């Protein structure tokens, strides 16, 4: 199977970006929208062709889906250590291609309606194309350095898109925060890469993740401060992944990133970029699993579980619907990490890995749908806040129904997509560790509760007095909603475990009925509670908020994580370190240099009196000199 045509998939959006970026002023907005959609459509078609060819035409070789690589040297470090640029085709990258293409295409179509009349319309599509290109590059990367390169590029696209409304102070701050927090995480990633490159002498994924390869067997044994060097590297790399995937404690940028336009939130901060961390761990999964019996993998599992719980609790208390969705994203990403963390490698052992990828896949669909639905609502009422909404089901029927489908999907109502993937995760967790399982089930209940809380809040409840009666969004916006709703309802039936597994062999997944029943029940309880609380205006929420008192307050303030970070950055790093250094530089370093100059001037002022211009003084000095010299010479000659 020739894979060279796959190069076209990322190159199309790159061309679009350059085209739209350079012709920025000279292109009509309506035209640029069409160009963007058409370009993405071709990429999407190619992605589907690639998936079809890879899974069905090429199929398994010796019982596994083999990885295919086509790459060229981009830069040499040493003759053996180099950065390659190319594409790596294996089940997860093909799956990611589909995810990115579908969501990106839908967002492109949606944006044509959502961004209509915005002065930066062309710019917006250019940035979207840049992002799509980078994301393709990331998922197709053949080696750690290539993934790092595109990792940075998606970061910067995200920065540009969050700061899209650049005259708005909060958007600027959010963009900056997102970039710097992820950059900090990338520092860990980069150091991890350096360590791996130094010890194993390669960045190539295929060499690194070979379970019989030297990276895992030999270097896994070299230890540093009690742990294997590779484990250290993996922990640091996971730090990078945690930054992108908003894991606790590096999640603080994600809620703020909702300042960007809603389609951006749907594409970048819900469906694609934020799963890059999960993808990275999955990419290096054999290393995580085999080196030191999965020490690093355990960290992944616990961080994931904690983040899932933490974010779900916060999500309940937030009043901005996009923030609720953001915390929900974080929670679901935690789920995926948890699934990876509890996974094994061979055959059915690897159910966690499979479940994680499956959840990534389904989550991309229904979370994008939730965001686009929320965007449609925001478009209609011009506010993000729950209190400005209510009773919208009468005005926006399509949005209502699609949103409901998405909400049921994320709550795990059978037979929608979320049910299937979440079930697999619970199975994996149950088999690994009971505590993680209970956390996961609890989070499932919370998820159902908070998502139906906003659903009822938006579409039911008391009708707010609207200045302009809200209208259903135009077709360009509802069409993607319908497509995604259909997908959210149906992708659960894809026999995912046949295609994407840790060892690329594939197995047959079965539903574990007791666990599925428990999960579904929990979800339904959550939904019913939300029904009771929020279907009609009632005093119940306030009562319970008061019951929980300070805990509610903490959750409402996101457990003061922002404040902690602000304290560390502003008070310690800026005030204490940076300002001190600036002062130190001015006062001491520069002061020393200027001091030397001043001392020279001072000395010269003092000794310039010697040059008095009085011949008598010179004569005096001359005679003194003669006498002294004469005495010296006499002394020397007589001895």
């Amino acid at each position: 199977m020739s894979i060279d045509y796959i190069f076209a998939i990322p190159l199309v959006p790159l061309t679009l970006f350059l085209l739209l970026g350079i012709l920025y002023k000279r292109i009509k907005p309506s035209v640029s929208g069409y160009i963007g959609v058409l370009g993405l459509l071709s990429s999407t078609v190619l992605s589907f062709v690639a998936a079809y060819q890879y899974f069905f035409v090429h199929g398994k070789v010796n019982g596994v889906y083999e990885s295919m690589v086509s790459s060229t040297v981009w830069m040499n470090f040493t003759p053996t250590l180099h950065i390659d640029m190319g594409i790596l085709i294996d089940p997860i990258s093909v799956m990611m291609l589909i995810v990115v293409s579908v969501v990106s295409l839908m967002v492109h179509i949606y944006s044509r309606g959502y961004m209509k009349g915005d002065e930066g319309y062309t710019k917006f599509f250019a940035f979207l194309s840049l992002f799509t290109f980078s994301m393709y590059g990331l998922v197709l990367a053949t080696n750690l350095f290539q993934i790092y390169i595109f990792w940075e590029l998606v970061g910067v696209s995200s920065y540009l898109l969050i700061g899209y409304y650049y005259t708005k102070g909060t958007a600027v701050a959010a963009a900056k925060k997102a970039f710097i927090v992820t950059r900090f995480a990338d520092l860990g990633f980069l150091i991890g890469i350096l360590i791996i490159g130094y010890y194993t002498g390669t960045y190539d994924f295929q060499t690194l993740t070979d379970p019989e390869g030297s990276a895992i067997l030999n270097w896994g044994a070299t230890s540093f401060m009690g742990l294997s060097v590779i484990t250290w590297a993996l922990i640091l790399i996971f730090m990078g992944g945690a930054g992108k995937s908003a894991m606790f404690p590096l999640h603080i940028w994600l809620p703020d990133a909702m300042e960007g336009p809603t389609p951006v939130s749907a594409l970048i901060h819900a469906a694609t970029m934020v799963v890059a961390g999960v993808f990275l761990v999955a990419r290096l999964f054999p290393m995580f699993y085999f080196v030191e019996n999965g020490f690093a993998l355990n960290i992944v599992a616990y961080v994931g579980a904690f983040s899932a719980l933490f974010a779900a609790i916060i999500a309940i208390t937030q009043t901005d619907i996009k923030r609720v969705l953001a915390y929900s994203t974080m929670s679901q990403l935690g789920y995926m990490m948890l699934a990876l963390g509890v996974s094994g490698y061979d055959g059915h052992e690897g159910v966690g890995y499979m479940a994680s990828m499956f959840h990534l896949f389904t989550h991309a669909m229904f979370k994008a749908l939730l965001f686009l639905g929320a965007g449609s609502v925001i478009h209609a009422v011009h506010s993000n806040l729950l209190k400005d909404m209510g009773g919208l089901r009468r005005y926006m029927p399509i949005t209502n129904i699609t949103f409901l489908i998405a909400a049921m999907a994320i709550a795990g109502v059978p037979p929608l997509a979320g049910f299937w993937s979440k079930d697999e995760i619970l199975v994996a967790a149950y088999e690994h560790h009971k505590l993680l399982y209970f956390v996961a089930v609890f989070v499932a209940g919370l998820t159902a509760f908070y998502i139906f809380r906003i659903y009822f809040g938006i579409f039911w409840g008391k009708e707010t007095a609207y200045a302009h009666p809200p209208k259903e969004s135009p077709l360009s916006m509802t069409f993607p909603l319908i497509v995604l709703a259909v997908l959210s309802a149906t992708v659960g039936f894809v026999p995912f475990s046949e295609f994407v597994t840790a060892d690329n062999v594939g197995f047959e997944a079965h539903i574990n009925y007791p666990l599925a029943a428990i999960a579904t029940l929990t979800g339904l309880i959550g939904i019913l509670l939300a029904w009771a609380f929020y279907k009609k205006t009632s005093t119940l929420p306030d009562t319970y908020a008061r019951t929980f008192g300070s805990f509610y307050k903490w959750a409402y303030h996101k457990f003061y994580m922002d404040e902690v970070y602000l304290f560390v950055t502003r008070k310690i790093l800026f005030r204490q370190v940076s300002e001190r250094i600036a002062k130190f530089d001015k006062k001491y370093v520069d002061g020393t240099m200027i001091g030397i100059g001043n001392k020279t001037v001072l000395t010269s002022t003092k000794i310039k009196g010697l040059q008095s211009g009085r011949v008598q003084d010179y004569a005096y000095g001359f005679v003194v000199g003669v006498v002294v010299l004469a005495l010296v010479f006499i002394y020397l000659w007589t001895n």
Partner: protein
Amino acid sequence: MDILSLFIVIPLLTISALLFCKNLQQSRIVAMIGSFIQLGMSINLIFSYFNERLVNSDIMVFTRDIVWFKPFNIHYNIGVDGISVALLALTSIVVLAGVFISWKIKDLPKEFFISLIVLSIGVYGFFISIDLFTMFVFFEIAVIPMYLLIGIWGSGPKEFSAMKLTLMLMGASAVLLVGILGIYFNSGADGGPLTFNILEIAKVNIPFEAQKLFFPLTFIGFAVIGALFPFHTWSPDGHASAPTAVSMLHAGVLMKLGGYGVFRVAMFLLPEGALHWSWFFIILSAIGVIYGAFAAIKQTDLKYINAYSSVSHLGMVLFALLMMNATAWNGAILQSLSHGFMTALFFALIGMIYERTHTRDITKLGGLLKVIPFISVIYVIAGLASLGLPGFSGFVAEMNIFVGAFSHEEMLYRITTIIAVSAIVVTAVYVLRVVGIMLMGPVKNQTFLTLPKVTWYEMTGIFLLLIPIIAIGVAPLWISNMIIESLQPFLHGVL
């Protein structure tokens, strides 16, 4: 006339042509043509270098040797390898861009362009010399016009800054001269005649005691102009007072003389001394990297921010040079190039912003993206390049440095590498801070709404600098191959 001497002769011709110019129009055209020919020549040099390399495997090619002071065996001895070719190209691009940026210079245009070109003679001469003494002479030629350029055409406390800059660099030169003479008087250690020729000296085994003594002198002498902590303080004041084109040339090219000199003289001729002292200077330069970045966060003057960022970036160059392996050296040279283009671009943009808004204080600026979109977008791009975004030259350079430095055997060096790596976060903070405050947000001052658009000559200057940044960043292989090939003799010399 050989191809390299033309690099000295053509600026001289340009200067003599400038002497006959009467006004701004004439002088800028002449200066532009002169620099344009230079640029053409350096591009030509790159191609002829590749052709020459196919048949000639000497360390230096296009050499020429003329005695100009027999008693001390001083020669006008020139030649280039891949590193100097790259730096010559950098110089000619920055000079041409500088001429474009000074298109509307008000006072004494003729004299301004003459000084600018004298400066470029010094730089060209420095990069092509293989004779230590000649190199030193060109070094001084490059430093002296700086005083006039800042003192006459500068702004703010220009006399003070000019004097501070010149005095500190002269002080460094004094130290450097001692180092060079030390090398010279030890060049006969194997029984041969005393010589200033770098290639000859490299073959001599200079006694370890002498190396130990003269390495720090030579290193510091060169590193002061490369803004080594704690001798960097001339740079913020100097840059802040200098006119735009001078800042560009100074930060873009002149500060590179430091790194190049350290590499070509201190490391190449005194390898054992370098090994002996490297730990000390590595710590200094690693401090410089972090320190410069942190100091940049708190500045409010655009030029100060950039000056401190230069301290940080050039600290990286010295840091990499001391790591003594091909990857890090390659990174150091690439970083020199990349920083040269990037910082020149920055200063050009700052000049344009200043010309329009009459302030460089970022707290007074805001929302420029709305009023001067082109300049602001390029500023964002330059900022992203500066924080090491892939696709720009900075990333390529930094990755080479980090990978090279990290592959050092000793744990101390690897720990300092990690410290230096963390500068990428701090860099992001100060770059984005400026972008956030100055370019984004609401328009702070209503008078900004009527700012003039970018002009053709400004655009030309910008693109001259931007294209190489992207070219190196997207396709680094050819240039890094050219450099690595030239590093081989040095590697054999050192290891």
